[in-house]
C-alpha cells in the first residue's frame, strides 16, 4: 500500500505507459556524456569520500574511508595467543570462505587429489552467492562469441580490466555452464534444451542464463549439496583472523577463532585460497547494501597484511535499483532482471530518463541525478528519494502472469508488504552492491604472496572499474575452479616449513608500519560481523579473551 503522494505519482506513471511503450528506444550514451554523468553523480567521484593509504603494498593508493579504516588497522587478536607449533589441522589446501568461489574451489581441488579443508564464517552458503538473482553470463549461443563477451566485459570495466583475467573469464564461461548443467542446476530452458537467455546491463547479446530469479541460490544449493555428497571437510562459524606465514613470508595456512566458543586454533596448509567475498557491510559513504551479513572485507585485510597487492580498490559498484520503499527492505536488491524483462525506469513525473540497460555505474548515476540533481525523485514517508520501476509494464509486454513467473522471489518479497508488483510499480534508489576491485591475481588465481590464492569477489582486476551483471557469478566459478586446480597442483610440490618456523612475522612487520603511520590503536580489523546494536551495547573488541584490550 502506497501513501497518497506516492499514489499520485503512480497515476502519472500509469498515464504515460502507453506512450512509453511506443516511444523510440533511448540511445546508449556515447563516451563523453557518459563521462560527464559519472563525474557529476557517481559516488566514486566524490573526492572527499576517499583517502590515500599510508601503509602496506598499496601505500599512496586511494580508497573509500571505510575500506581504508579496515586496511589501516591493528589486529583484533594477539598473535602470541595462538599455538602455531601445534596446528589443529594439517592439510594440502585450506579454503577460507564457503560461498560459490570457495565451494567450487574445494570441489575441484579435491577432485585433483588434494586433502582440502574449508572453513567459513557462518554456514556454508551464507554468502553473497546465495543472494544473486538475475543470472550468469556465458557466450554459448550461435550469434555470440567469447570475443564479443570480452569486448563487453572491457567496455563495462572502462577498458581498465587486466586482459589475461578478462580472457580467462570469457574463455571458461561455456565450460562453467556445462559443469553446472551436469551438476543439475535447473537453468531456464526451452523444451528442446535451448537456454532462455536475456540481456543484462552492458551486454551486446542475450547471454544471461538464469534459474528463475533464484540463480545464485540454485547454483549455491547445488554446489553445497555436491560438497556434502563428496564428504569434504568443513568447519562453520569459524573466522579467519590472520594468515600464517613461514620464515620466507610465504603463506602457510591461517589462524581462526570459533565465533560460538571463542576457541582459537591454526591450520597449517601447503596452499591457501581466500574466498571471503565482498565488503557491502562496510556501508561505504553510508549507503545501505545488498550483501549478506558476513560481507566485511576480511580477506582483503588478511592478504594485505601478508603483503598482497590490491587492485581497483577505489571503485565500488552501486546497484542502480535498491529498494527505496518500504523502509523494512530499504537497500535490498531489486534484480536487474526486472529491467531485463522490460520494466522502465520512470521519474516522479512519469518520464523515462535513461536507457535501462546501460552499465550499472551509468544507470545508478542517472538515478542519483534524477533525484538529487533534477528534483524529479519520488519522496517516501521517511523522507527518502527514489524513482519508479514500472513493473506492471512487464505484464503488458509479456502477458498476464509474467511478473510472477519470471520474478517469483521479488514478487514474494513485495507481497509481504502489501505491494503487488504486477499491478503497482516499485520504488528504487542505488545501493552498495559489489566490490569491483580486490586482491590482484594472475589468471591461475595466484596472488602476490607465495602459496596464497584468491578467488571470487575478494579478487580484483577481472572487471576493471565496473563489473557487469552476470559476470560475477561467472567469475567466482571460473576463478574458484582455477584456484582449486592451481592450489592442488602447487600443494603437490610445496614443501612445508617445520611448524616451529611458522608464525605471524608479517603481522609484526605490518604493525611497525602502522605505528610509524600513527594509526590509532583503537582501529582494529578484520571486522568479521557488522555492528547494528545501539551504542550502549557495542563492545570494542570481539575477542577480548584473545589478548587485545
Amino acid at each position, binding site marked *: 500500500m502506497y501513501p497518497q503522494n506516492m499514489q499520485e505519482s503512480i497515476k502519472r506513471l500509469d498515464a504515460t505507459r502507453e506512450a512509453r511503450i511506443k516511444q523510440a528506444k533511448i540511445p*546508449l550514451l556515447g*563516451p563523453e556524456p557518459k563521462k560527464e554523468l559519472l*563525474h*557529476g553523480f557517481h*559516488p566514486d567521484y*566524490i*573526492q*572527499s569520500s576517499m*583517502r590515500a593509504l599510508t601503509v602496506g603494498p598499496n601505500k599512496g593508493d586511494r580508497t573509500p*574511508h571505510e575500506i*581504508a579504516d579496515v586496511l589501516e588497522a591493528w589486529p583484533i587478536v594477539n598473535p602470541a595467543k595462538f599455538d602455531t607449533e601445534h596446528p589443529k589441522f594439517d592439510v594440502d589446501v585450506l579454503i577460507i570462505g564457503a560461498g560459490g568461489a570457495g565451494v567450487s574451489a574445494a570441489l575441484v581441488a579435491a577432485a585433483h587429489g588434494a586433502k582440502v579443508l574449508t572453513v567459513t564464517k*557462518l554456514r556454508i552458503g551464507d554468502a553473497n552467492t546465495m*543472494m544473486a538473482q538475475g543470472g550468469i553470463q556465458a*557466450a554459448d*549461443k550461435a550469434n555470440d562469441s*567469447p570475443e564479443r563477451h570480452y*569486448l*563487453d566485459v572491457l*567496455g563495462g570495466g572502462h*577498458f581498465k580490466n587486466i*586482459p589475461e583475467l578478462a*580472457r580467462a573469464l570469457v574463455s571458461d564461461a*561455456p565450460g562453467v*555452464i*556445462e559443469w553446472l548443467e551436469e*551438476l*543439475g542446476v*535447473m*537453468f531456464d*530452458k526451452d523444451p528442446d*534444451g*535451448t537456454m532462455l537467455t536475456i*540481456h543484462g546491463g552492458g551486454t551486446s547479446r542475450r547471454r544471461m542464463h538464469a534459474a528463475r530469479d*533464484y540463480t*545464485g541460490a540454485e547454483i549455491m544449493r*547445488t554446489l553445497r549439496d555436491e560438497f*556434502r*555428497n563428496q564428504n569434504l571437510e568443513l568447519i562453520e*562459524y569459524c573466522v579467519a583472523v590472520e594468515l600464517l606465514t613461514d620464515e620466507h613470508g610465504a603463506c602457510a595456512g591461517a589462524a581462526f577463532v570459533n565465533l560460538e566458543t571463542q576457541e582459537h586454533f591454526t591450520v597449517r596448509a601447503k596452499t591457501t585460497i581466500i574466498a571471503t567475498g565482498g565488503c557491502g557491510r562496510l*556501508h561505504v559513504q*553510508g*549507503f*545501505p547494501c*545488498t550483501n*549478506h*551479513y558476513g560481507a566485511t572485507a576480511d580477506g582483503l585485510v588478511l592478504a594485505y597484511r601478508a603483503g598482497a597487492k590490491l587492485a581497483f580498490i577505489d571503485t565500488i559498484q552501486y546497484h542502480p535499483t535498491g529498494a*527505496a520503499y518500504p523502509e523494512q*527492505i530499504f537497500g*535490498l*536488491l531489486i534484480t536487474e532482471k526486472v529491467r531485463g524483462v522490460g520494466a522502465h525506469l520512470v521519474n516522479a513525473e512519469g518520464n523515462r530518463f535513461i536507457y535501462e540497460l546501460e552499465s550499472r555505474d551509468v544507470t545508478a548515476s542517472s538515478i542519483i541525478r534524477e533525484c*538529487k*540533481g533534477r528534483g524529479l525523485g519520488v519522496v517516501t514517508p521517511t523522507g*527518502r*528519494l527514489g524513482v519508479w520501476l514500472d513493473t506492471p509494464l512487464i505484464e503488458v509486454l509479456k502477458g498476464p502472469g509474467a511478473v510472477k513467473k519470471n520474478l517469483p*522471489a521479488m514478487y*514474494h518479497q513485495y507481497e509481504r508488504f502489501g505491494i503487488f508488483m504486477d499491478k503497482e510499480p516499485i520504488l528504487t534508489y542505488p545501493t552498495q552492491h559489489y566490490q569491483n576491485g580486490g586482491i590482484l591475481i594472475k589468471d591461475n588465481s595466484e596472488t602476490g604472496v607465495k602459496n596464497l590464492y584468491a578467488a571470487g569477489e575478494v579478487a580484483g582486476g577481472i572487471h576493471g572499474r565496473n563489473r557487469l551483471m552476470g559476470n560475477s557469478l561467472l567469475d567466482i566459478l571460473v576463478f574458484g575452479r582455477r584456484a582449486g586446480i592451481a592450489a592442488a597442483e602447487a600443494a603437490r610440490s610445496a614443501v612445508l616449513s617445520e611448524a616451529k618456523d611458522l608464525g605471524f612475522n608479517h603481522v609484526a612487520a605490518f604493525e611497525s608500519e602502522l605505528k610509524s603511520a600513527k594509526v590509532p590503536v583503537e582501529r582494529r580489523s578484520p571486522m568479521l*560481523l557488522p555492528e*547494528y*546494536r545501539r551504542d550502549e*551495547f557495542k563492545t570494542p573488541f570481539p575477542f577480548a579473551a584473545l589478548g587485545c584490550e
Partner: protein
Amino acid sequence: MAEEVKGQKPKGKSQKAAAESSAPTPQPLAPSPSSLITIFVMGEAYQVPKDLTIMKAMEYAGFKFIRGCGCRGGFCGACGTVFRTKDSYKLKVGLACQTVVEDGMYLTQIPFYPANKKEYDIAKEPANTQVLVRFYPEIMRCIACNSCTKICPQDIDVMGYINAAIRGDIEKVADMSFDCIMCGLCASRCPAEIVHYQVGLLARRLYGANVAKKAPHLAERMKEIKTGKFEPGLDKLGKMTEKELSAMFYDPKVRDVEP
C-alpha cells in the same frame, strides 16, 4: 549505519557539489519513543520500534547475531522464526529478516534443525519414479496433516510436493519446491520425520541433470572452444590498446546490440 569516519580526510576539494550527497537521505532512521512496542524474545520482554523487522528489532534490543542471520534478504533460510501473537492460539511463522514485529509478539528463532541427507552420484542416478522413495523412504509415512505447508515461510505447497514425490513425479517436485530456501521449518513440524527440503533438492538436481534436455548450442560451443576457434581473436583483442578497444566498443557496426 553511517559510522563516523575516523581517518584523516584528504584536503582536496570535491569535484561537484551535486555528487556530494549521493547517499540516500535521511540516515539512519531514528526511532521515536512513542512508536515503541513490546516483543518477547524467548520469553523475555524488550521494547523496540514498531516498524522494524524481527531481525532489526532483536538487534535494537541488544542481540548480536551469530546464528540465525545469514543473507538478511530472504534467500538463505538462516532466520526461520516461530511466534505467537496476542490472544491467539495459532502458531505463526516468518523469516526474521522479512517479517515486521507486532506488539505482543512472542517468538523464538529456529536457526538449526537436525536433518538427514543421503549421498548420491547425481550423474549415475536414473530419473525414474522410484528414485526419490529409494533415497528417502520415509516420505511414504506422510499422513497428510498439512503442517509442513502451513509453516512454510515461502508459501510453498510442501505437502503437495511430498505427494508428488511419493508418485515419483520428479518434474513436479522440482517445479513446486523451487522457491525453497531450506530453512528447515517444515521438517521441525513433520510428525512423519520427513526432511522435505532434501527431497526437493534431490528432485531438482535430478531434473536439471538427467531430465531436462542438455543445451545443444552449449555442446556446440564447447566443441568450438576445444578446437581453439576463438584463440586468434582473443589474442588480438588482448593486445589492443584502450583506444582501439574503445573505438570498437562504440562502433555499432562492430558491436551491434541484439534487440
